[in-house]
């Protein structure tokens, strides 16, 4: 009730101060045919910032023109070569037919691909700010926006977050065009569509939805487009903003929109019927919707032999189980069901925990939280220092705590095991730490029974989640998904695409004849 009230308030506030998408701060005016006037107006609007360059020149017998661009965003040689030189050295420009010559200039003289003709200040200025060059000619009512954008870009390097032993190593960069080109190089089919969109009143970041027509579900694309379109916020700095805004279950522990920094992973996901969202300025490309098993898959699974990949996959699930349940199980066993421990083991634990003042739950909490702090410290510090800090910290802290008798040795070991197990699945660390604490509370209150209840609650929560209408825990439901969830079947077995995800041509082509087929 209370919760609903708050949500209503938020939605109302958002609609209140959102004007229509385009900002009409006085730019929706036609340009005049006087060159001087136009330049004055643009100078007033863009202000005197030093990186705006206005260059006036004379061409033909007595034509006056001006080009306006932002230094650093444009490629100067291109401006010189493809715009200035052809115009200045061109002889046949004549004065009488004004409309013709502007079109003629656009079509024949300026040799650059992406040219737009417009007479509205807003289009011109938007283009200029996005890295294009504006050509204004005295006496003509329209100006040209020539795309000459090229700026310093980070080279394509190996992503830090997903190191891989085998398989392609190139990662996305911050520039939208490079990312789309990386994807385009991998999926060359004409059906691979990329829709562009501009969001953010202040940042104007352009976002691109990449999907394969006929493969991704039409409703999925429709809902995604709908949500992105009426997403009306000030700024989009990174793709995680988008993830927050369009996510189906903001409060759920498990992520329903996946992200990745490697083009081969994103390409594979798009080929399975998902939709990629590429945000300009962020190396992380979102793939919606994300299923539960994707959290446990790493790109390497598909490049390593099937058997080994399945073992890896099972180990990841087991590691997830250990990471979440190690500490709560320890608490439950030592405080509720001492009966289940073998006798000698129980005695050694009893000896170790004899002096410790705190009950098991508090002790566990101290250790888990201190571990989280150490892990975070390890991440935040620069690379070499971070590694040293977290290892040294853990060792000294653990040792000192045990010798001071604050924490029992077995608890330290359990927390260490749980922590290490948590490392194997990097992108589930958020759900692991939350679940671990919930399970610890349940273990202290209801012991083993509480853990069983917790386990079932997680199962139910997983099956309720349906991001974009696609069941989150699909691997239990459909045979095809089972082939690729807990274990990975060899590629030639996985004939059809994930059932719920892909809409039309479910069957993948029979690309490979299985070895036992003796028909050659």
């Amino acid at each position, binding site marked *: 009730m209370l919760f609903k009230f708050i949500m209503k308030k938020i939605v109302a506030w958002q609609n209140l101060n959102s004007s229509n998408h385009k900002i009409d701060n006085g730019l929706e005016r036609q340009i005049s045919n006087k060159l001087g006037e136009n330049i004055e107006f643009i100078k007033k609007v863009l202000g005197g910032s030093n990186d705006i360059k206005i260059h006036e020149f004379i061409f033909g017998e007595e034509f006056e023109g001006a080009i306006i661009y932002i230094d650093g965003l444009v490629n100067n040689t291109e401006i010189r070569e493809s715009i200035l030189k052809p115009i200045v050295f061109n002889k046949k420009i004549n004065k009488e037919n004004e409309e013709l010559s502007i079109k003629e200039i656009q079509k024949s003289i300026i040799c650059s691909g992406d040219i737009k003709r417009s007479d509205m200040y807003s289009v011109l200025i938007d283009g200029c700010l996005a890295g294009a060059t504006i050509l204004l000619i005295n006496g003509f009512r329209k100006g040209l926006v020539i795309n000459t954008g090229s700026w310093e870009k980070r080279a394509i390097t190996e992503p830090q977050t997903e190191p891989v032993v085998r398989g392609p190593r190139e990662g996305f960069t911050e520039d939208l065009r490079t990312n789309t080109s990386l994807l385009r190089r991998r999926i060359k089919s004409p059906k691979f569509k990329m829709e562009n969109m501009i969001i953010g009143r202040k940042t104007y970041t352009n976002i691109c939805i990449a999907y394969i027509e006929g493969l991704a579900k039409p409703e999925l694309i429709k809902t995604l487009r709908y949500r992105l379109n009426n997403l009306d916020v000030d700024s989009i700095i990174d793709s995680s903003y988008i993830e927050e805004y369009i996510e189906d279950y903001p409060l759920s522990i498990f992520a329903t929109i996946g992200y990745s920094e490697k083009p081969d992973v994103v390409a594979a996901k798009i080929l399975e019927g998902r939709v990629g969202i590429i945000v300009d300025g962020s190396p992380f490309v979102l793939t919606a919707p994300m299923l539960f098993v994707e959290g446990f898959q790493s790109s390497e699974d598909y490049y390593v032999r099937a058997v080994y990949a399945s073992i890896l996959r099972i180990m990841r699930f087991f590691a997830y189980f250990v990471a979440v349940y190690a500490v709560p199980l320890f608490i439950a066993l030592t405080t509720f069901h001492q009966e289940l421990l073998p006798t000698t083991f129980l*005695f050694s634990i*009893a000896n*170790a925990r004899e002096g410790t003042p705190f009950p098991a739950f508090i002790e566990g909490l101290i250790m888990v939280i201190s571990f989280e702090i150490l892990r975070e410290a390890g991440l935040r510090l620069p690379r070499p220092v971070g590694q040293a800090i977290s290892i040294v910290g853990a060792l000294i802290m653990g040792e000192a705590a045990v010798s001071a008798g604050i924490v029992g040795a077995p608890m330290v070991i359990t927390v260490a095991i749980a922590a290490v197990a948590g490392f194997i699945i990097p992108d589930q660390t958020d759900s692991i730490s939350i679940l671990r604490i919930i399970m610890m509370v349940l273990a202290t*209150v209801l012991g083993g029974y509480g853990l069983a209840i917790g386990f079932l609650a997680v199962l139910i929560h997983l099956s309720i989640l349906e991001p974009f209408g696609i069941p989150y825990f699909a691997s239990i439901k459909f045979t095809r998904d089972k082939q690729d969830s807990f274990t990975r079947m060899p590629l030639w077995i996985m004939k059809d695409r994930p059932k719920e995800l892909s809409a039309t041509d479910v069957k993948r082509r029979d690309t490979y004849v299985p070895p036992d087929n003796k028909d050659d």
Partner: protein
Amino acid sequence: MSKKIKSFNFILIIFIALFLTGCWDNEELDTISIVTGVGIDAADTEGNIKLSLQVGKINQEKSTPQSAGGSDDSIILEIEEKSILTGTNELERQVTRALFMFHNQVIIFGKEQAKKEIKPYIETFIRQNDMRMETLVFISEGEAKDILDIKMEQDKISSFGITKMIEGIQRYDETYSIRVLDLVCMIMDEGTTPVLPILKIEGSDKSRLLLKGLAILDNEKYIGELNETETRGYTWIRGKFKNTFIEVDTEDGLAILNMSNIRYKLKPQIKGEDLIMDLEILGDVVFSEVQGFHNMTIEETTKIILEGAKEKINEEIEASLSKSKKLKTDFLGFGTEYHKRFPKVWEDVKEHWENIFPEISLITNIELNLIDTGKIRNSLDMKEGK
């Protein structure tokens, strides 16, 4: 939007509900003391028992690596009460921590108490939820308390020592490992009288325990015990030997055989009026020690030794059979065999089984095949035979 909110305010409710609860069953490890052995002795006043509980002591100071691992000594708590439960509650008030019975390894009945009766106490052990059915049951020569009290060299806590000893012996024969479950089976079985192993304190400084034969408990009262050979006979008949040593002493020489891979068949037959049990024992024999047999060929020695071995086994079986006939209790389990094979006959024979039972004749045929004579072919002072 609304579907999401509904499912989430539901989760909030679950958490609120759970946080309301306290923690009832939460016993920290340092608030419990673990009972490792229970001893029940006869008390002088009628109806009472002397209950002694052996509790594993957890040492106070920090667990240095060597001292971890349950080698701390134990405390013996003693009380005289009407029943086990009242006894434990009483003791619990004296001890600072709650007594937990689920790690109990051993239940020992003093001889005098066994003479009185043990059934009601076994009953409590089955009814209690935290008593486990696999705890071992013994009868002690003297007082059960002394058995719990001794300090064995290897394991300070004697009940651990006993369990380890039984685990060791179990590799050879299983007569001595009687769990609560086996005892209850025997009690519920009309055909057999229960049998329990006897523990005796040995060794000069009273630090060693000896398993000295089996005690017979006819309707749960101690009426007699089996000495060494009778126990072996009992094990032969019940088929509880895994591998054992047979000592063959003939006038030509002495031989110790190691018998393994033993297979049993105990088949009751009814021929006309009298009941016959035929017992078949097959086993592989290995010469582990041969003395004497001066200048005899290998064939002769083996023949004599095998004859002697069969002789020895029959003698042991005869000893235990005669003991059971003398005591008029069928602890060898013939009654159950008949109950299983011939249920109808057993119905009408059941009541007066005591006087029918002694007439049963036991026919045993034993086959031992010699598979190996150890590393050397024949002993030093044998003649080179064929």
